[in-house]
């Protein structure tokens, strides 16, 4: 907890992004504490993935300022952006694994292309990453031959093999059943602790996120409506937070209302 009090690893100020006439992000400001598991919550279409892709430099924001470890990631400063890319990894919602490469080749790829390590060391580090993620028996398999959970772990192995300080997770639990959602958050928390990286997760899975995270933020209509601890989120009187929080129990109340309605058979 002591480390959370240090200067933020990532600072976002007034980030704005639109596509044509549609505004997606309208002035997002956040600070991601070093060593934390920070979750950005929000309903579908709130701009969470766009926010994360702006941070990862996949999408260029219209305006705003992003600083990593105290250094501004200005688009004219290619050295700072390259340094950021070396110290940051991105886990895509779709995993974005290379289907023409084996699991071992997928994990080796960032080391082969961005470091000057010898082939032997690259192989050792890649095998080590596969072993730590408990998929070391599948190095010769192609991603299509692995289950969904194993693909997720393979994508995480590829993300951590470069030993990043920050890992960005884009909807890591999308399309998974509740058991697997728990397992994914457990995996993030476990490996965050093991490899000592800062994790920034965007998701709409409120239950798992509030249990696993150190801090949460709620993004709604391109703005941050809440930022604080999970306890603070539970206690918040903010109407948007309340609506999002209550949406978990809304199915039960909606069904109860439907059950009390009189049957109308024509």
């Amino acid at each position: 907890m002591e480390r959370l009090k240090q200067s933020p690893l990532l600072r976002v100020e007034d980030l704005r992004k639109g596509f044509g006439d549609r505004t997606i992000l309208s002035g997002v400001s956040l600070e991601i504490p070093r060593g934390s598991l920070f979750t950005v919550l929000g309903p579908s279409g709130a701009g969470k993935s766009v926010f994360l892709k702006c941070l990862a430099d996949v999408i260029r924001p219209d305006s705003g300022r992003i600083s990593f470890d105290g250094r501004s990631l200005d688009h004219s400063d290619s050295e700072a952006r390259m340094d950021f890319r070396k110290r940051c990894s991105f886990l895509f919602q779709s995993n974005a694994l290379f289907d023409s490469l084996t699991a071992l080749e997928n994990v080796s790829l960032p080391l082969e292309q961005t470091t000057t390590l010898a082939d032997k060391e690259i192989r050792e580090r890649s095998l080590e990453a596969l072993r730590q993620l408990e998929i070391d028996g599948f190095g010769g398999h192609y991603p299509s031959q692995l289950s969904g959970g194993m693909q997720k772990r393979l994508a995480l192995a590829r993300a951590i093999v470069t030993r990043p300080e920050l890992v960005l997770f884009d909807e890591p639990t999308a399309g998974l059943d509740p058991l697997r959602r728990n397992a994914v958050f457990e995996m993030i928390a476990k490996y965050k602790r093991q490899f000592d990286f800062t994790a920034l997760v965007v998701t709409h899975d409120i239950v798992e996120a509030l249990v696993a995270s150190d801090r949460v933020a709620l993004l709604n209509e391109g703005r941050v409506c809440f930022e604080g601890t999970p306890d603070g989120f539970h206690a918040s009187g903010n109407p948007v937070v309340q609506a999002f929080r209550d949406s978990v129990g809304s199915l039960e109340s909606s069904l109860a209302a439907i059950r009390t309605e009189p049957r109308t058979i024509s």
Partner: protein
Amino acid sequence: MTRMMAMLHLIGRKALDTVFGLGDYALFTGRSFSAVMHSKRMWKRIIRAVYEQGTVCLPVILIVGLFTGLVLGLQGYHVLSRFGSVGLLGSLVSLSLVREMGPVLAALMLIGQGGSALAAELGIQRNSEQIDALETMGVSTHGYLVAPRLLASLLVFPAQTALFVVIGFWGGGLSGSLLLGVDSGVYWSSIQNAVESRDIRECFLKAAAFGLLSISICAYQGFHSHRGGAETGARAVSASTTRAVVFSSIMVLVADYVISSFFI
């Protein structure tokens, strides 16, 4: 008047889009070549690209080369026999193949098989965020995905063209000598007398130029398949693959005319 203005607006928009597209394509190709300097473990990727472009296209090159030679021999024999010049069949077949048909047809076959596959592969990689993943890793996407293919094309296109031409000679000989009775020695010595080193230079220059042009166009279309306007997903990949084949085939014919005009 309003209709006229709308038409002028449309023409202007299309012209601007074309100029923007050409500039963007030139930058893409330039970036891919400059990435050669910074890319790591390039040889492995070049060998893989040579295999993908070369081996996969080999059967179609052999078949089309053989039948082109057979048809040239057949048609050439009937035209030349009217003038009593069947002894020049070898010259006709060889010069047609070396100067024009070999480089052009081999390039079109390679575009149909290797170029379309490249555009589709890059389109799918764009669609499934694999290219974005490379960018987030700090990997040069031009250096990793495009540059090895461009360098491989400089080797594969001339080699496949040479193979196409040699098989075509053999096909011409097959129909001329074996089926139509032209003396085999006359046929092959006519080839030897007709083809000069200048023709071979032209043939290889065309093959290399067609290779660079077509592979860069196919790579550009696949790489930017997400810019296809309203089309997304599988439709965007399909549209970009079609554009890749059509544009590169047209550009091969345009380049053929330009290079030929310098050599004549």
